[in-house]
């Protein structure tokens, strides 16, 4: 039995590995954020400073969005070893994804102490299997997504905390848990809200033990505080906190406009009623709660997923539609549990599910699959448990072997079909349906430009697509020393981002062809199809790996 389990577990890990590593370096194309992470790691290795010359930062300035820095630091050995390549940038993310699939198995084993051994085994294996094939988890494992790395750390920290609690708050796992949790705070913004709330909830649920072992908690709490201090200190710099506020709820002016409209509809707009019912607290509070509730919307979870193209696969939900059935079964059977321990353990998972989208709900754009990615963990637990209950119910109720096999076969078939459809959508349709979801075509462009640029004085490149400079730095492995010395970062635009308009021979600008042509003799002009007129001297059409025409190059 043990042996079979091991084989299955190992196979699941292999599957998880394959799904996260197959074509990892080329599909989808590298996006600007990933390039920034990679190039900053490269810059650190070469110069000890980031691209803008800050030495060993906690938050990386990048596009003035101040990315939390831990992911860049995990990249260091990979970039050192593999060079500045797509694979190197994505390896820690993909590895963290595979490790999370493994960790989930161990979490179930440690969390549910009172569950029958056999049930628990099926449950644990199903959990890791479902996470291995989860569209939500695969999507953000395949790339340099800080959030996925943070989720890995949260799961790991969670496991250590549970272990510590099980043994009566032993100090060693508790401190390691704190360290891992703190690491997640250094990795991704959302974790800074999720982790404290999650941990406090777990402690509250186990309040009797918590009170009894307050000494160990105090010690590890102190360790945590000390470790968080530099982060807090760095975060309170106005440049960084203002960026965080820029994506926050209050940056959305809708609720404020509504507030004014509502007050104006009162006969006396400054009356007590108008002020009690219509104020910022209520309007923004309502938006927060609505945002939060939208993360549980069926359309988002089971049918279509996030609205942002970069975060989604065509016609695919964050989870498989069939998982709704499993989750439903899980909820019913959990609510009917009589065992106090099991109830408490499920309360912890439920708490996680409830608070997982809180950070995402504090930003505008909801539901948001990226910022709420850690939801996938509790959801997978529910889904896998429902599946387990279904399997066991069939085992108990159905006596005929043929019927049993038919039912199992049917369940497998549905899951396999859902999975096949997802893979089909991911590999065959995603890049073509959403050609602008990632920076397709830029690698091809850079290769051409590098081969030919010595013949031109200047290279003008359209800034139509997201942050072209960073991708040029990345693909040309441009010397960070030179770049730090010569570039200038623009002020923030309406969305809070800055960019670099010029380095080396490259000028990133919108191509107004009729003006650009006479002003820039002996230059290479790179524009989109809309920017370049048909009669221009087009020397090269640059297609992305998805066969979409992205750039036309004109020799001027």
């Amino acid at each position: 039995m043990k042996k079979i389990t091991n084989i299955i577990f190992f196979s699941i890990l292999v599957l998880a590995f394959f799904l996260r590593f197959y074509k990892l370096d080329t599909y989808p194309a590298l996006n600007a954020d990933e390039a920034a992470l990679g190039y900053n790691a490269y810059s650190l290795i070469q110069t000890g400073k980031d691209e803008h010359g800050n030495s060993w930062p906690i938050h990386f300035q990048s596009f003035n969005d101040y990315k939390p820095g831990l992911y860049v630091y995990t990249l260091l050995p990979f970039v050192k070893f593999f060079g500045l390549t797509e694979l190197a940038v994505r390896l820690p993310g993909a590895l963290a994804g595979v490790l999370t699939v493994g960790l989930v198995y161990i979490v179930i084993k440690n969390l549910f102490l009172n569950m029958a051994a056999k049930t628990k085994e099926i449950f644990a294996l199903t959990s890791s299997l479902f996470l291995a094939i989860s569209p939500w988890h695969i999507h953000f494992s395949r790339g340099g997504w800080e959030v996925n790395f943070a989720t890995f750390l949260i799961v790991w920290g969670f496991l250590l905390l549970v272990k510590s609690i099980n043994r009566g708050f032993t100090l060693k796992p508790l401190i390691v848990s704190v360290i891992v949790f703190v690491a997640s705070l250094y990795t991704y913004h959302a974790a800074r809200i999720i982790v404290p709330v999650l941990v406090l909830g777990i402690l509250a649920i186990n309040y009797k033990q918590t009170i009894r072992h307050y000494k160990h908690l105090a010690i590890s709490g102190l360790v945590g505080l000390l470790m968080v201090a530099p982060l807090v200190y760095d975060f309170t710099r106005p440049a960084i906190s203002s960026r965080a506020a820029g994506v926050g709820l209050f940056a959305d002016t809708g609720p404020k406009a509504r507030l004014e409209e509502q007050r104006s509809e009162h006969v006396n707009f400054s009356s007590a009623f108008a002020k009690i019912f219509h104020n910022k607290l209520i309007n923004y509070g309502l938006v927060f709660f609505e945002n939060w509730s939208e993360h549980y919307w069926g359309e988002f979870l089971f049918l279509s997923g996030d609205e942002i193209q970069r975060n989604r696969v065509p016609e695919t939900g964050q989870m498989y539609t069939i998982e709704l059935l499993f989750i439903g079964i899980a909820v019913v059977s959990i609510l009917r549990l009589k065992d106090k321990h099991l109830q408490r353990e499920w309360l912890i998972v439920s708490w996680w599910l409830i608070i997982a989208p809180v950070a995402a709900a504090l930003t505008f754009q909801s539901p948001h699959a990226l910022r709420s990615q850690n939801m996938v963990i509790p959801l997978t637990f529910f889904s896998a448990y429902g599946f387990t209950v279904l399997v066991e119910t069939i085992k108990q109720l159905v006596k005929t072997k043929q019927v049993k096999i038919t039912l199992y076969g049917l369940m497998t078939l549905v899951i396999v079909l859902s999975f096949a459809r997802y893979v089909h959508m991911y590999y065959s349709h995603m890049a073509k349906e959403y050609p602008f979801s990632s920076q397709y075509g830029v690698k091809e462009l850079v290769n051409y430009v590098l081969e030919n640029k010595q013949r031109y004085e200047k290279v003008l490149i359209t800034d139509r697509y997201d942050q072209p400079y960073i991708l040029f730095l990345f693909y040309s492995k441009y010397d960070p020393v030179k770049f730090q010395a010569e570039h200038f970062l623009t002020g923030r635009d309406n969305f809070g981002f800055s960019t670099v308009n010029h380095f080396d021979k490259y000028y990133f600008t919108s191509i107004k062809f009729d003006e650009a042509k006479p002003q820039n003799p002996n230059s290479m002009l790179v524009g989109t199809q809309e920017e370049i007129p048909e009669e221009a001297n087009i020397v090269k059409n640059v297609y992305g790996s998805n066969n979409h025409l992205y750039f036309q190059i004109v020799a001027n």
Partner: protein
Amino acid sequence: MKKTNWILLGILVIALFLRLFKVSTIPPHLTPDEASLGYNAYSLLTTGKDEYGKTMPVIFKSFGDYKPGLYIYTVVPFVAILGLTELAVRLPSVLSGVLAVWLVYLIVVNFRQEKEKVDGKYAIFASLLLAINPWHVHFSRGAWEINLSLTLTLAGIYFFLKSLDRQKYLITSSVFFALTLLTYQGAKLSSALVLIALVVVFNKQVVKFEIKNIVLSAIVGLVIALPIILSLFSGKTGRLTVFSIFSYPRPRQYLQQFLDQNNEKIGSASYYLFHSETNNFARGLLGRYFNYYSGRYLFFEGDWQNPKHNAPNTGLFLLLDVFLFVPGIIYLVRNKGKLTFFVFMWLALAPIPAVLSKDQIHAVRSFNMVIPVILINSFGAMFVLNGIVNLKQTVKYAALAAFLIGYVANYGYYIDAYYVHLPKHDSKAWEYGYKQIAQRVIALQDKYDKVYIQQSYSQPYIYFLFYGSAAGREEYYPINYQKQAKLSENVSGDVGQVEKVGKNIEFVAFDWPRIRSQKRVLVVGDTIRIPDSEVNNNAKLIEEIIYLDTRPAFRIVETL
């Protein structure tokens, strides 16, 4: 009287007050359907015929949507007493809303007699929560046929429960279910779903019914509903094809483009596995189904496609109802009983008629949901109350007080949204302005040879008939209009339009330059058709009709 009865009476008074207070003016205007129901009732009262001169119809042609007409018959006595007024049109719905509150009480009490352990207070909670529920109040404060239909459904359920003790009530139940079909188009499906739920829940008892009773009830029901059933075959199905989701497959071009990305062909294996039309419809249906259980719909925004269907910036339930709904679901799952089973089934089935229609979300077609959700909320209230019994006195009362204060404040927010904001915020959605136009134009029309009114699917003609008759102008009386009535049918099968009423009033597609060329005619149009530049330049402004939020709505002008 027993104490419970007094409480129930109090609840009914609250229900009546919430449904009746200012009902003539809030909502701020009659919808075209309301005006049509009223005018047809008036027509029946005075001539025994509908607006097209058809004697005592069961199905009314109206705008070409062929309304099942029971609601119109219920309006007749009120028009007889109160005259042709907003109040008369809306009163049947108000009263049926109050009746629904009482019926919910009776239903729960009778489920209890099924030897189930439901707390006695539960029935009181259910009726109280329904009495104050925003969704139910909203549709009770207007001539919404669905509201009457739901009340009849509740009566059907009540008598079905009674029939479990005394089988003769089965016929009464059948009569009520059949009447829902005469009231509302969608009842064909929604009532069938309720019946299915009842039969499934009470399958053991139903099997024991005498064949005689079942056959008799079926025959009585079928006879009553016969005109509606026959209409299914005669094409008067009220735009069934216009509304059905199945009339709208995805555009061929979109599909082709998607398939081309991967050189897939229609009919290939990968098409059937991943891209089939069935799959597409299933996704569409499921997506709609999910919408009805979204927080956005139930607690935050309500029907986000139709501002007319709820007060602005509020959901169909109070936000704090979440704290009853979630415990209610827990109770529902933990307790296996007939009532919980029935509530669960109804909750799951109720949105289906709405899901099958083309709209993403629709608070009218899914209105039946209000009852199962209210019942769940009442479970929740009981569950929470029983759960905190063992707490310390102080903690218990503090928690209760906190919840009550919050709930009352939340209700205050809803009342504010309804009474203060709805009339202003949603003036346009309620077609505000046509009453004012009709009254003004009718006073002026004799001075002009011709009056041109901007044609619209807001059916301006019906307001002229309604308010013309109300003002005692004989040319608008049904007896005179019936001779004139002519509906231009819509080629797409949707509602049609009427082009002429009275002596000189025409409803025209707006061609301002051509109208302008005619001298001294009275013209009414919105501010887009008659822009500022034309006023007092090419036309003399007689009056500007203004929405309640002070934005201009329509202009009445005279050409020079």
